[in-house]
């Protein structure tokens, strides 16, 4: 292994691949999916999280003051790419790291120092509480209220579509500290212990039959003052900071998984099957474009630059790439997909269903199109 201080991302990537090779027997256990749903997956992956933490790989890309080993977003990107390339199933908990942890590290380093190492070791799970029944793509309509008290906030309201919510110990919650009319100006970001009195977590069974999300109810939940993330009434800025990661790093993480999935599909197609070759080709050009765009976005994030409205392009490409990859997979296994109940077919169905949600969560693609129309193409505004 080269000196960790001076090595380039390419060297870091090569060192990671070497480590994966050396630990292949242990890691084989994580090259497969497990039965039993989201909760079973989280439990299964705790051991992998511990392995990656102890070997240091998951600590790269996080500042030392929050328990990391330094480096940038490129180090995190290299981990996701390296795991995917080696056929290791990337734990879904990394998705939440890429949305919540950058916010904690940036706006609440003390909280990050307390919780990030625990998360990376596999001891904690977090959720992201943004969406509400009446605030989906229109996030500024959030109603969950946080009333300032002498020693913190009193939280009341409801969040929905919290990924990993049924297993989460803590959540990052966007709440209203101003009036409803204050829209995006009266919002505040809070860190909430989901074991607090007054919190009710209800799993939501998704279209694929899995408990992918939860709805979370807050009834006079006391949130201590030190759980404030960023400035009071400055929650919109914090949320926008998060969204560039959700649209950028998440897209990168997914492209790693999707390349692995598409390789498997390509291996399954009989040479000369034109219909399936086209489906594989279509998915691949989407993935190649997604990967190319994501490199630019990850590099921008690593250099502390906001990638800007163009990140919406990544999100649109991701949605199309997800769909195209799992459509190719479905077509390549059309019979098992419909009739088989073995783990492989069940997993394919679960993932295929979930791929159809990518165009919805994190800001629906239709809204991304509006963003590009106005801020990239500079088309005239007006009632539509």
């Amino acid at each position, binding site marked *: 292994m080269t000196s960790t201080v001076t090595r380039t991302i390419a060297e870091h990537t090569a060192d990671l691949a070497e480590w994966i090779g050396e630990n292949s027997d242990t890691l084989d256990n994580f090259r497969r999916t497990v039965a039993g749903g989201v909760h079973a997956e989280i439990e299964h992956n705790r051991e992998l999280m511990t392995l990656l933490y102890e070997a240091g790989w998951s600590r790269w890309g996080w500042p030392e003051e929050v328990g990391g080993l330094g480096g940038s977003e490129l180090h995190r990107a290299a981990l996701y790419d390296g795991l995917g390339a080696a056929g290791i199933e990337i734990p879904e908990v990394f998705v939440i790291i890429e949305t919540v942890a950058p916010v904690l590290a940036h706006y609440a380093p003390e909280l990050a120092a307390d919780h990030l190492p625990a998360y990376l070791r596999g001891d904690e799970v977090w959720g992201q509480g943004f969406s509400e029944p009446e605030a989906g793509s229109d996030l500024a309509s959030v109603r969950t209220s946080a009333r300032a008290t002498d020693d913190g906030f009193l939280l009341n309201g409801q969040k929905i579509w919290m990924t990993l919510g049924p297993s989460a110990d803590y959540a990052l919650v966007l709440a209203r500290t101003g009036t409803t009319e204050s829209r995006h100006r009266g919002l505040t970001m809070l860190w909430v212990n989901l074991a607090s009195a007054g919190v009710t977590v209800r799993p939501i069974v998704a279209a694929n039959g899995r408990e992918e999300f939860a709805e979370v109810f807050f009834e006079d939940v006391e949130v201590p003052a030190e759980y404030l993330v960023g400035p009071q009434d400055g929650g919109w800025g914090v949320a926008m900071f998060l969204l560039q990661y959700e649209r950028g790093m998440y897209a990168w993480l997914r492209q790693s998984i999707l390349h692995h999935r*598409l390789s498997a599909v390509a291996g399954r197609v009989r040479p000369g099957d034109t219909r399936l070759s086209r489906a594989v080709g279509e998915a691949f050009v989407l993935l190649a474009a997604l990967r190319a765009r994501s490199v630019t976005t990850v590099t921008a994030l690593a250099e502390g630059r906001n990638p800007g409205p163009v990140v919406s392009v990544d999100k649109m490409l991701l949605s199309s790439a997800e769909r195209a990859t799992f459509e190719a997979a479905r077509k390549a296994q059309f019979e098992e997909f419909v009739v088989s109940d073995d783990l492989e077919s069940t997993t394919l169905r679960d993932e295929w269903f979930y791929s159809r949600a990518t165009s919805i969560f994190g800001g629906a693609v239709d809204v991304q199109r509006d963003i590009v129309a106005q801020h990239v193409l500079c088309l005239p505004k007006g009632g539509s």
Partner: protein
Amino acid sequence: MNPDELELITGTAYRLFEQGDSYALVDELVGAGLEKELHSDDELTGALMTLQGRVGATSTLLSLIVSGSAFDPSWTAVLPLLGTHAAPGQRQGDLVVDGLAINPHTAGPYLVYTPEGAVLVPSDGVITTPANGLDPDLGLHTVIGTVALGSCTPVDGLRWDDAEVRALRAVAYELIGLAERALTRAVEHVTERKQFGKAIGTFQVVQHRLVDANTALAAAKAVLESTPGSDDLLAALAAKAWAGRAAREAVDAAQQFCGAMGFTWEFGLHQLVRRITVVEALFGDSEQVIEEIGNILVGRSDAPRLAAL
């Protein structure tokens, strides 16, 4: 190449494109000793080909790019027939040439690639016919003939595998320029044109169609820019697929949103429709390329990760 140099060269190219002299640019570039850079500097090649598309110009740039560093400005490279990127020459005892040329030099010679290498063919060895067809302004010709190998001059060190990748990337850059031209035209029009009391560009259905063309455009640029100077065929094919799709989507949207005016001869959009349709078919159109990519991946049982961190 530093930004000042690049700007100087593209400035000159813009002037020559505007003058409409199809041969002047390559003469100028070779005169300035830049032919080597045009085979190694993706940024320069990309900038010139994109500009050619953006201006809607035609030149002999592709001859230079395909020919490799031994290039002489009197040469005309023979390109594959539309819809394929197979070498235009085949050795079947004699050399069988069946391809296209853009703005060929009548005095010749022609540079003809075969799967084995490349040779110079004297211009009287082949029949060159103007192929005005759909896009008479492009300078497209067919080049057909059977030539004794003895009358050809081998050119050492040239491989079609390298040339086709450079050409695919170059054509992708030109399509990016053409897509930008079409998209700009459409955006201008929908911003100005009012119906139902407001600019038609305020309608979401109009906006989203243009955004989708822009997404394809961004995808094409990203694939090219993340693999600078790459000799990887898959990356070149992916870029070509996206650039062709971007140009097609942009010009189709432009045609739709420019309405009846856009359908007139005078409005001039037809020139862009013509150019994009022909250039997209050079070296294989998006649909052909995507099918080919699929075949390659199926053959390898792998979907490689192209752009590096």
